[in-house]
């Protein structure tokens, strides 16, 4: 079908016609026919007569395509599109050819320019024939806005939108709104108080019914499209309920922790529970907590170490013990035998020595035992359910404790005559005295836990029986690993050979063979082996030697235990393995050993190999083989229906500890293999929670999100915070007194020692959750169990006002910021001036508190310096310094102010006048030139620079130096950009749609920018942009619906093979793979029309409307014809 194309060529006065022979082109094209119905040229096509020419032709000549050759489409494409649509033609049937900017203006050869212009027009004609009419679709708008950032720009936007009657949600990263402006003292050029201008706004925002503020929150992702965004917001816990907090401040009075205040730029400290300043909005407290401290994360039972150590530091031992008990019921035992991973994780260990956590805990436990009064938290209302617990080891005891607190009736069945399991029969008395254990067991019994001794569970009285016949509602299996692992060693049946775990159990029961005068050999490298050796040496043998496969470093036994054993006279030999046991007349005489080649394979798995040619023997009368331990599963009956893992352990769900039989739970060694006491206690508590959920809620507990962990590396800030107290050393029994005695070796802390140890804690989690504030809070507003949460918001427009950051002055080491305390950044100086600031508004030197007599301001720190900072001008620093020196001069009239500057840029209303006043009235000395260096000389700071106006170097003495640091993008700008799909420039500032015509719009329809996040701005500009962004959002709301551009991608189902090449191309998630259709699907509302997918699509099934391959190919051919 033939097309009817009209071609119009503009002279643009002489702009085009001067260099291009418009008439000639027009005649040639008009003469060629080929679908071109008419070709006209005119002086000014964009003028009304020019446009009318086109409109009339469309109607009279029935044109179906129009080509217009004139200036850049960036200039007049909308004009002509409107023009053709006025004549009834679809605006996309039009093509604009640029023969001015791209042709007549850049050539000086008229012939070549004419050739080029004609080629361009031919390209347009060829292309336009393939154009198709396109119409966008309409979608309703959600009349609510999201403002990201609660600084002055965002607040302005929020207020304007809210006042117009629409809902606004402000998402603010910090705990309060106000942004940078809240930190300022006075503002230029009027020198009025920043707080006085800001607070009325913040408080209006705070109380406006249409505004909701979400503090401590960030945008995670944005879905949807203009008018219909779905925004995910991640909120960090505030720990203080906004609706309950009255702002009375009782909480912060009792807070034991002091950390440096970010709001004050580290020039003051704050309590983790606090508010930055009294007028802050929301005018409520909040707690800053970085996450779980390494010690707490390391503890298998999850004990809040930081909390109770700090309480101990305050001398609040009862509260400390209560906090321990939330996770660890047996403080006295744990304090003795725990392998304390908390101490290994303690960050203070990176500086001097870790806190003596374990011993402090023991102190807390012992203190209670010595008082003889057992305090446990209040039990919940009694419940009818009885829970059976199998085994009276640590796991069961822990579960029983927590079950009892929940109101259940726990009943423990223990095969042995005493409780404690491994604690009782595995751990020698010198480490855990029996009476300590006994008291903890008695305390448990006092809570209503029944313990039946000598009552084995097994066939005859199986778990099945417990549930079916005896009416237990749930069962917990907490059996330990108390059988010795036996390996076939030749000669192991000789008299005098003992197995490690059994040997320990026998000694605990007093059934140990006499060892006096005998040579004892212990085989093994684990804790059982060392315990056995240390037990043996207390029985008066001639010698005790331990032989391990592993080297000293590889040994799994705790290093300090090995050391203690050596102190007590145990000798060690390493890297020998048993070949056979030598015996005579059925009695052991020694052992033959072979050298170990390696213990672990490349993957670190235990897989020993030996040199069979390197043999040796050791003589011995008694041999203890301590090569491992295992759980005896004989107590399980087939009808119990409890599944085991391939390793022979009870199979449990990792989160709920539920076994394969509903209602039966298990924890401790029988599920983990030989593990530690503290792990068993942790599992016991988890099982209790699961049992509670199972019986009370009828389902298993939901897994609560784990608190994030604080970084493991110590920070400089923490080093500063650490109090210089040495670690308290535990008094011990002298080594010579230990042999032959089972008296406890470690003697325990005193109150003073415990307190001192507690004060050593740096509280690297910031808030330690000691609970002091909770106890002090009258309105019960504090909830320390809060966790981060995700909220989803539906909004129609998003205004991004995330603000600016301050350039890090340390990147200019020659200026000495951070090295000399009296070199400040201008924001730090601002806090000094501020009446609510760290000095109460006195401008004094941080080093000595003296009032400075001379201050040097250094301009352009981080600005206009491509090498180290931004290439751009930060815009406000000239005025900031002029303002600050004026404030300084108002404080001390005789003071001298110097400014090293490059250019003074004061392009604002009243700005230049303000600067002139600073120079002329305040008498500041402006030196043109970059300062080269700041150094100390004779107790004074000296600024060396160059005076480029007079030429030559200059040195100025100063009491204080203020660096006019530049403004930079927020450090986390990329997170915001990614979450919102915003484009940024190379400095990290968000890209506006057009630098002049679209300053607050972004390339994403419905997402707007305001304030410093788009580039350095002063307050008036930020406010103006805030207003402009509000107007954009309001325009959207008042339109009620949005037209979705038709120049978007579409997928041809008849071509698409579902290869998924395109899916990862789309930066807007507009492309997805339809599982039903097995084809790609375009969400046209999300598509921005970039065409990346179309270029990648291997079958050309994806196309962007108005940029179809046919159209481009035709244009190429036309241009080259």
């Amino acid at each position, binding site marked *: 079908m033939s097309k009817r194309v009209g071609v119009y060529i503009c002279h643009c006065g002489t702009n085009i016609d001067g260099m291009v022979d418009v008439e000639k082109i027009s005649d040639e094209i008009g003469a060629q026919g080929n679908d071109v119905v008419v070709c006209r040229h005119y002086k000014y096509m964009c003028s009304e007569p020019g446009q009318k020419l086109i409109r009339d032709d469309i109607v009279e000549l029935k044109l179906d395509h129009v080509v217009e050759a004139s200036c850049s489409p960036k200039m007049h494409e909308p004009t002509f599109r409107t023009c053709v649509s006025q004549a009834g033609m679809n605006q996309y049937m039009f093509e604009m050819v640029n023969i001015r900017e791209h042709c007549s203006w850049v050539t000086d050869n008229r012939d070549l320019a004419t050739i080029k212009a004609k080629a361009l027009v031919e390209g347009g004609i060829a292309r336009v024939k393939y154009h198709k009419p396109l119409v966008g679709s309409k979608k309703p708008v959600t009349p609510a806005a999201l403002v990201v950032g609660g600084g002055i720009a965002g607040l302005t936007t929020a207020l304007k939108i809210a006042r117009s009657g629409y809902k606004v949600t402000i998402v603010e990263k910090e705990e309060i709104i106000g942004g940078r402006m809240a930190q300022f003292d006075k503002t230029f050029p009027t020198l009025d108080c920043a707080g006085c201008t800001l607070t009325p706004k913040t408080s209006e925002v705070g109380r406006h019914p249409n505004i909701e503020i979400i503090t401590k929150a960030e945008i995670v992702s944005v879905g949807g499209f203009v008018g219909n965004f779905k925004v995910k917001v991640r909120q960090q816990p505030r720990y203080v309920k906004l609706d309950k907090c009255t702002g009375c401040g009782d909480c912060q009075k009792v807070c034991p922790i002091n950390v440096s205040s970010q709001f004050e730029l580290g020039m003051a400290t704050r309590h983790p529970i606090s508010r930055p300043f009294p007028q802050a909005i929301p005018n409520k407290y909040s707690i800053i907590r970085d996450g779980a401290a390494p010690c707490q994360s390391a503890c298998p039972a999850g004990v809040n170490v930081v909390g109770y150590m700090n309480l101990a530091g305050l001398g609040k031992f009862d509260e400390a013990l209560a906090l321990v008990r939330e996770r660890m019921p047996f403080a006295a035992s744990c304090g003795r035998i725990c392998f304390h991973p908390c101490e290994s994780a303690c960050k203070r260990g990176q500086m001097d020595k870790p806190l003596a956590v374990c011993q402090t805990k023991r102190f807390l436990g012992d203190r209670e035992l010595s008082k003889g009064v057992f305090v446990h938290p209040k039990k919940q209302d009694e419940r009818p359910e009885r829970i059976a617990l199998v085994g009276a080891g640590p796991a069961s005891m822990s579960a029983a404790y927590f079950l009892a607190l929940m109101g259940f009736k726990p009943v423990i069945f223990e095969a042995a005559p005493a409780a404690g399991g491994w604690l009782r029969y595995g751990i020698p008395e010198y480490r855990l005295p029996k009476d300590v254990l006994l008291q903890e067991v008695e305390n448990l019994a006092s809570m209503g836990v029944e313990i039946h001794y000598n009552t084995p569970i097994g066939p005859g009285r199986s778990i099945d029986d417990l549930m079916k016949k005896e009416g237990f509602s749930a069962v917990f299996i907490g059996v330990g690993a108390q059988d010795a692992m036996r390996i076939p060693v030749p000669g192991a049946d000789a008299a005098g050979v003992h197995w490690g775990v059994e040997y320990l159990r026998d000694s605990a029961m007093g059934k140990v063979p006499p060892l006096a005068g005998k040579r004892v050999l212990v085989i093994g490298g684990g804790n059982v082996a060392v315990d056995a050796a240390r037990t043996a040496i207390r029985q008066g043998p001639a010698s005790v030697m331990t032989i391990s496969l592993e080297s000293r470093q590889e040994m799994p036994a705790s290093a300090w235990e090995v050391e203690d054993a050596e102190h007590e006279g145990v000798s060690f030999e390493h890297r020998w393995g048993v070949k056979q046991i030598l015996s005579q007349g059925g009695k052991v005489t020694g052992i033959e050993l072979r050298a170990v080649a390696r213990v672990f394979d490349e993957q670190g798995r235990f897989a020993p190999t030996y040199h069979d040619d390197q043999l040796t023997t050791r003589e011995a009368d008694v041999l203890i083989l301590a090569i491992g331990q295992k759980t005896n599963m004989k107590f399980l009956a087939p009808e119990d229906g409890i599944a085991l893992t391939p390793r022979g352990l009870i199979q449990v769900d990792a989160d709920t500890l539920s076994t394969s039989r509903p209602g039966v739970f298990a924890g401790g060694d029988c599920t983990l293999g030989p593990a530690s006491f503290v792990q068993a206690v942790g599992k016991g508590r988890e099982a209790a929670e699961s049992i509670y959920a199972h019986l009370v809620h009828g389902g298993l507990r939901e897994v609560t999100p784990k608190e994030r962990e604080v970084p493991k590396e110590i920070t400089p800030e923490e080093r500063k915070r650490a109090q210089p107290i040495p670690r308290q050393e535990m008094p011990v029994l002298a080594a010579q007194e230990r042999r032959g005695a089972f008296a406890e070796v470690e003697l325990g802390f005193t109150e003073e020692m415990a307190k001192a140890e507690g004060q050593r804690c740096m509280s690297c989690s910031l808030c330690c959750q000691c609970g002091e504030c909770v106890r002090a809070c009258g309105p019960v507003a504090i909830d320390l169990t809060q966790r981060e949460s995700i909220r989803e918001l539906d909004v129609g427009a998003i205004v991004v006002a995330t603000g600016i950051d301050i350039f890090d002055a340390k990147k200019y080491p020659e200026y000495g910021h951070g090295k000399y305390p009296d070199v400040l950044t201008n924001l730090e100086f601002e806090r000094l001036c501020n009446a609510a600031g760290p000095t109460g508004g006195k401008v004094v030197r941080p080093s000595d508190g003296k009032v400075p007599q001379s201050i040097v301001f250094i301009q352009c720190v981080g600005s206009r310096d491509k090498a180290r900072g931004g290439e751009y001008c930060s815009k406000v620093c000239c005025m900031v310094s002029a303002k600050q020196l004026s404030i300084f001069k108002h404080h001390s009239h005789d003071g001298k102010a110097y400014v090293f500057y490059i250019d003074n840029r004061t392009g604002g209303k009243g700005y230049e006048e303000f600067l002139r006043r600073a120079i002329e009235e305040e008498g500041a000395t402006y030196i043109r030139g970059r300062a080269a260096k700041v150094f100390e000389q004779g107790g004074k700071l000296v600024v060396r620079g160059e005076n480029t106006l007079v030429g030559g170097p200059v040195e100025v003495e100063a009491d204080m130096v203020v660096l006019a640091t530049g403004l930079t993008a927020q450090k986390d700008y990329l997170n915001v950009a990614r979450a919102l799909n915003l484009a940024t420039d190379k400095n990290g500032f968000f890209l506006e749609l057009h630098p002049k015509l679209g300053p607050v719009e972004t390339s994403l329809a419905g997402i707007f920018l305001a304030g410093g996040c788009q580039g350095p701005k002063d307050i008036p500009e930020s406010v103006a942009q805030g207003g402009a962004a509000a107007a954009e959002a309001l325009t959207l709301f008042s339109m009620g619906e949005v037209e979705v551009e038709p120049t978007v991608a579409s997928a041809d189902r008849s*071509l698409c093979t*579902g*290869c*998924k*090449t395109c899916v*990862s191309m789309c930066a807007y998630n507009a492309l997805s793979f339809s599982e039903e259709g097995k084809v790609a699907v375009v969400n046209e509302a999300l598509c921005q029309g970039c065409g990346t997918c179309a270029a990648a*699509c*291997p*079958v050309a099934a994806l196309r962007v409307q108005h940029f179809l*391959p046919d159209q481009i190919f035709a244009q190429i051919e036309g241009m080259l014809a």
Partner: protein
Amino acid sequence: MSRPEQKKKLAIYTATGCRACEQGILDLNYEVNELGRFADPVFWPYVLGTPWEALSEGKVDVALFAGTIRTEADRQAALKLRESSELLVAVGACAAFGGLPGLANLADATEAKAGETTGSSSADGEGKPTLPRAEPQGLCLSQVVAVDYVVPGCPPTQNLLWAAVLALVCRGESPARLSYAAGRLPEAVAEAIAAGVLPRRGTTFAGEKAVCGSCSRIKEEKKFGICKRPYQEYQETGRCLLEQGLICQGVATQEGCGGICTGVGVPCRGCFGKAPAIFDPGAKMVGAISSTFDSKDAKEIAALVENFVDLAGTFYRYSLPSQCSLLATPDKG
């Protein structure tokens, strides 16, 4: 048994090529045992020994032409068959796109061995015979004469070959198995066959999408992090070969084969020619693969590209003479 009034006259010829296509036509007869009822092969030199003169005995209804145009004799054969046939069908990748023999077009003239014959059009005096002169380069049939239908593939799969015979020779007269033949044909073609009308001229007897559409492999995510060559290790079954880092042209090749090669664990090399909407298969393959490079770093990308070899010989393996837009000469007619 009713027979059509007049059997269609059939011509079958192979120019320069391997004869697998003719074999395929023979196999049709073996398997379907139907063709003879509808068609008289009046001209089939390589199977029946028919001389060229047989062509002058009246118009042929359908000519099935296989092989690349490589010599003067091939060109003459194409012209003669075009002249004497109602419908001329390009059968197989060689006739359709140039095929493997066309690959030789890439080789540089200077690299060919010296002293080899180029064919001679005149006897050299000693009574020795002449040899048809070689064309400057291998061409596909449509570059020499107008072609009515195309049956692609190297060789064409039996079902599509049969579909073409059903459509062009039997014209709805055959009760034979359409569903077997029409498995992957576009609906319009299948309907035309069923209705006994000729499909639109220019129809390619192939599927309507690309090979991926019928390939059994699992596509998860296209992220090209490493360029593997087929001798390197990869999974025989399961995941998409391209996603495993192998160049596989299934993404941009017209379907119809059912993904035979990918199904047996070797990458597609495009014997069905480019998928219908594509301009140039090499450019599209470049676009599709490189777009998914798993890097944003120019150096990393350069290193990745370093591992690609012989793009032209791979992307235009079967279609160099006609579908490589930088080498191709335009079609005739």
